[in-house]
Each structure stands twice: as C-alpha cells, then as structure tokens.
C-alpha cells in the first residue's frame, strides 16, 4: 500500500528525520494561509499516487500567499493519471546546495533489507546506478541482530561522502532503515534529501509503501494518518464488478472464490488456483480469446461461493459463455465446484450445456463432479486434456457462437 507524500513525510518526521515546515490542505484559502505562515516562497505540490505530476502541471512555484492560493485552487481541480488529488502540500522553497538520495528496499534473493545511499539525488536512483555506479552505496542489514549506526556510515562513506555531511547523514539513514523495518515497509525513500546552505539536511520528498499483509499490525499509525481500512491504494481502483467479486468471496470463510479483476472480453472465466489461473489466462489469450475477467478459486470453496462467482461472471454484460477450469485439484472438490456453476446457470435461467463452454477440473472427487456435469450435458475434460487445450476449446466455442 502506497502512502501519499504528505503521509510519507509525516512518517519521516515522526522518526526524527528533519523535514521542512510544510503544510497539507484540501482548501485553497488554507493553502494561502500556510504560505503566509511560512512567510517565504513556496512550492505547491499535488498529492496524487501516480508519478509524473511535475510534467502534468501538479507542481507549481509561488512567491506570495495569493499566488499559493491560486495555484492550490488550480492543482486541486487537476486530474493526474485519471485521479483528482487528495489535497496539496505547501512546502517552503528550500535553498538547496545539493540533493542526495536515501532509500531502503528488500532484496528477495539475499532475503534481507538493503540500505541505498547516493550523493546524487533528485532523480531516479536506478538511473544513477547505471550511469554513476561509484556514487551509489549499498549494504544489506540483519533482521535478527540490532541495527547499528556503523552500517549506515559504511554505506554513506562508500558513496564518496565524508566530512561533517557524513556525520549528519548517519542518523538519518539509520532512522530511515528503522522506519522501514518497524513499519513493515516494502519501500522507504527520501529523494531528494537536501543539504541546505547552513550545511544541515532536510527531507524534501518521501516515498513509502507498506506491505498489505502487515497493515493489521500498524492500525495505530494508519489511524493517526487517517488511512481508511477500505482504501486499497492499488495501481488501479476496484471496479463495481470487482467489489461484487470481493463480496462473493466474503459469503463464508470456506476457501477462495474471488480475486476478481475485470477485463472487457466475452469469455467469462471461473478459474483457479493461483498458478493455474495465471497459466489459463495466458492460454486463453494465446488462442485469441478475450477474457471478461480474471479470478481465482481454490482452498475448497463452498457451493454458495462457486455459484456466486459464476453468477457474477455470467451476469457481466458482454459475457457469452463461461469456462470453468483449474489445474489438478487436491484440496478443492471437483463436485462442489461443478454443483456451484451448474446451479448458477439454472438460477439465471440458462442451460448449463449452452453457457458452460468447458469444465476442466480434474482431481479430488472428480467422478462425482463429472456425473453432475453429464446429467446436464456440460462438456468436461479430465487431466488428459491440458490446461492449454481446454482454453483452446473454450475460445473455439465462443467463436462458433459468434459465427452462428
């Protein structure tokens, strides 16, 4: 879950890292008042999650409070990447001598967090790493032993920084690393970290992302920042269809029949499990099929859940048929899924043989499941038919339907 800049800055500030005397608001008049309090030139920054706000006109400079108010009004009405901003940040225009970079991320291969530091900041760190690798310091650190200042010192020194700057930067990077670990972040970045004329350092922008799985144990912080439990902060906001999918999955606690993502095709998919869904979605597209949705079933869902998901997909405008397919199941029961999808067709007044393009779920309780499908003349396949072949047949049936 990504934080807005004003939230990330608040987290940085709470960690004891110096920040500018900024203000956040959703009101243009208040933006003017903040600028007045600052009493100097300001920067007005749109608070959106998507990148590229500078280019989109979401960052403007103001010399007076009146200008700040006017800019804030304009930015608050400016959509960036399809989203209106959450508000604006009014930031004093600091006189920066040099911009640095400080960041912490996970390294999945070494299975440890890694501190990254560079005296070349203000731009994408990957670009710096490519063009000036000697100006980027890195160090993995332990999750079992306590973090020690020397680790940050080594990283900073290895990037070529010395003198009083080094001594001032050590606690900043150490604190950032602690913030990262203690708050279950997947990314904690201060970029740029500015060195001011008087030699002191201040965070000028911050980017933080928290792991979704860990949100529960940071309820206090999230509450204080005003992050609602319902806010997913995904790259794309959930559609009503996807929210309805989540509601189906919440019917009971038995298994999964959800993780629905909407697409605009004509072949509805009731597929699973995790890896099977990925494989099947690729296969449908490889055969020229147009999926209406992605989803995952698994963990032995109830008849009600399988039925609810199938109904949702069948009712989606533009869906001509559904394909019910999974990799070989061992925990999920074939007969339960078969019963659920047949029931969905019947309750919606459809002929299961017509609406279910193919049913390919081999595995536990398959004899019982196939018997149900035979009774309703639904085409089914066992493990001798590959996932790819099942997807091909489903696409073929849709094409037949279109031709007829």
């Amino acid at each position, binding site marked *: 879950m990504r934080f807005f800049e004003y939230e990330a800055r608040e987290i940085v500030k709470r960690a004891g890292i110096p920040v500018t005397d900024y203000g956040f608001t959703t009101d243009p008049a208040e933006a003017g008042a903040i600028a007045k309090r600052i009493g100097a030139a300001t920067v007005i920054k749109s608070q959106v999650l998507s990148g590229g706000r500078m280019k989109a006109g979401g960052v403007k400079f103001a010399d007076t409070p009146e200008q700040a108010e006017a800019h804030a009004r304009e930015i608050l009405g400016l959509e960036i990447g399809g989203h209106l901003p959450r508000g604006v940040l009014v930031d004093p225009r600091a006189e920066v001598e040099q911009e640095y970079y400080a960041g912490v*991320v*996970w390294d*999945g*291969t070494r*299975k*440890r*967090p890694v501190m990254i530091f560079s005296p070349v900041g203000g731009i994408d760190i*990957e670009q710096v790493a490519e063009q000036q690798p000697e100006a980027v310091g890195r160090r993995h650190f*332990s*999750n*079992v032993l306590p973090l020690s200042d020397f680790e940050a010192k080594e990283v900073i020194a290895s990037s070529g920084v010395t003198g009083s700057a080094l001594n001032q930067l050590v606690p900043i990077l150490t604190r950032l690393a602690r913030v990262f*670990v203690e708050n*279950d972040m*997947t990314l904690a970045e201060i970029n740029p970290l500015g060195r001011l004329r008087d030699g002191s350092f201040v965070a000028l922008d911050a980017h933080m992302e928290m*792991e979704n*799985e*860990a949100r529960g*144990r940071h309820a206090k912080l999230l509450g204080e920042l005003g992050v609602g439990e319902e806010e997913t902060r*995904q*790259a*794309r906001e959930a559609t009503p269809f996807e929210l309805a999918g989540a509601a189906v999955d919440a019917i009971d606690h038995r298994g999964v029949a959800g*993780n629905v*993502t909407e697409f605009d095709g004509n072949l509805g998919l009731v597929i*699973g*499990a*995790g*890896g*099977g*869904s*990925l*494989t099947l*979605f*690729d*296969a449908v*597209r*490889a055969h020229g099929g147009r999926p209406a949705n*992605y989803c*995952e079933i*698994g963990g032995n869902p109830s008849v009600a859940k399988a039925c609810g998901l199938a109904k949702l997909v069948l009712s989606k405008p533009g869906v001509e048929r559904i394909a019910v397919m*999974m*990799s*070989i*199941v*061992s*925990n999920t029961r074939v007969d339960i899924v078969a019963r659920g999808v047949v029931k969905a067709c019947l309750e919606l007044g459809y002929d299961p043989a017509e609406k279910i393009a193919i049913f390919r779920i081999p*595995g*536990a309780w398959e004899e019982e499941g196939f018997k149900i499908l035979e009774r309703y003349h639904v085409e089914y396949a066992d*493990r*001798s038919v*590959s*996932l*790819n*072949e099942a997807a091909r047949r489903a696409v073929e049936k849709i094409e037949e339907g279109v031709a007829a």
Partner: protein
Amino acid sequence: MSILIDADTTFIVQGITGREAVNLTRECLDYGAGAKVVGGVTPGRLGREVHGVPVFDTVAQAIADHGAPIDGSVVTVPPAFTKDAVFEAIENGIRLVVIVTERIPRRDVAQMVELASLRGARIIGPNCLGIIVPDVVKMGGIGGPARNAAQAYMPGPIGVISRSGGMTTEMSSTLSAAGLGQSTAVSIGGDAIIGCTYAELMPLFEADEQTQGIVIYSEPGGRMEAQLARWVTDNDSRLPIVAFMAGRFMDEMPGMSFGHAGTIVEGREDTAAEKIARLGAAGIAVAERIEDIPEMIGAKIAERSHAAPAARAVADAAGTRR
C-alpha cells in the same frame, strides 16, 4: 534417492489441530510407506491425538517423547503466530521447516530465514504445499489425499521445483502421463521472500544420482529466475532444465499482482519477458505450453547422456593416437 526427505524422515506438524492440518496429517500418514509423523504441537492441547499422532504443548515435549532429535516440521499456524512457531522449531534443533501459512509479512519471513541460516536449518515456503518423493513419502499437503497424490506422481528422473503448489501437481501429472517420473517435487512457495529458491535447491538435485533433469514453474515478480540463470552459468551443471513461465499477461499491467503475493513486479528485471530472455540466455529452455515439457526435457536428457559417452570416445581416441 531423493532430496530433502526420504522414508526415514521424522517430522512434527505445528498447529496440528487446525482443520487443514488434520487433513494434511492424514494424507502424509497414508501416502507411500507412510510418513513418520512423530508428534503435533498446539499450545494447550497436550494429551490429545490427531489420527493417532500425539499432540504436545511445545516442540521440546514432542522431542522428549520421541526420545531422539526430530528432522522436520510442517508449520500451519495463523500468520501472526508463524514466526514464533518457526523460531521454536529451529531453536529446538529441527533442520527442515516447511511453512504452509500464507500472508506472512516479509519482515517475519526474513527473520525466520536469517535465524535458519544462523542455525544451519532450511526453510521451504512460506505459502507452499511442501515436498513429495513419489511413492515414498510426502511432507505437506502436496498432491492432496494419498489416492490423488498417487494418481499424479510417479518415481523417476525429474526434479520439479515450483512457485505454485497446484502447478507442481499439474506439471508432475503431465510428466507422469508421458512416462517421466519425478525424483522429488518441491513446492517452494509463492511469496516475495521464500526460504529456498530454485538456485538454492539445485546443488541438492545435482548431488542426487536419480535426478537427470529439472522442470521449474515460474512467474513474474522477484529475481529468483535471474538467480537460477546465474547459477547455471556459474556452475557447470550436469542437469538440463526446462522452465514454464505463467502470467505473461501481467507484463502489460505493472504494479498489480495476480495469483501469488510474490508476483508483484517491482523492477525491470521482474517481468515475464525479461525472465524468459535471461533463462534462455543461460541455456534453460522455456516451454510455451505445459504439454510440451515432457518432450523437451526428455530430449535434453537424451542429448546429454549421448554427449557424455561421445566425449569419452573422443577423449579415448585422442589418447590412443598419442
């Protein structure tokens, strides 16, 4: 032979009284020669039994009851308690921990993995189904009930490593149908940080005489395919590898994750296209369809077994001339 486990491996199930764990215990006891499940742990349930397996409050009690060190543990407790359970297992000398639980934050996983490496233990998972040695033993829910597992897996020369539990069985079943059995199949888990990656299992398969080829299932997200490609390039492996890459459609949708938590693409190296290119450059064949895998790996194995005697013949001929 096999890797990681064999018929003599003893293990416990932590969280044994949970619904899923009860089933898993039954499955392991029933499969092959019957796993040596020597105990289970659920705090507060000392004295109970699950399918004849004694339940204890602590791992230490289970070891005391067994009267000897225990090799492994299958951990299936809720995410908030997993780290503590794994620490308990490792600190009691258990060397192989299979973590079934999903949705564990990365920090906890990193702590478990770091402690394991300090103590010389190995973690498989989290978010995995475990390990199976066809017809011999299984540790975890992999393959499901004994009858279903027996239908999909058969003994043979292929090592299977998969980021998806279900696809471990799908691919093994496809191999079995083509007459290619498995030496050991390992479901390594679908999370961003896992105890054992492909490259970390390769030395074990390399040392296993039964194994003649490797089949892997991979997905977008993370660097473990790049790590495998590097391992293959750096080590003169005797084992040919065929990979299958699912989730190619995700390359068009940056920032979204599908299927497993670990599929989130966080950098340029994480995409399916990039991984396919890297694996290919290291000589790892990437199958377009699962049904193509048996023929591809079969041909590669045949190629190597012919190449070896041929090389010897060339060497012999050279020797004679001298």
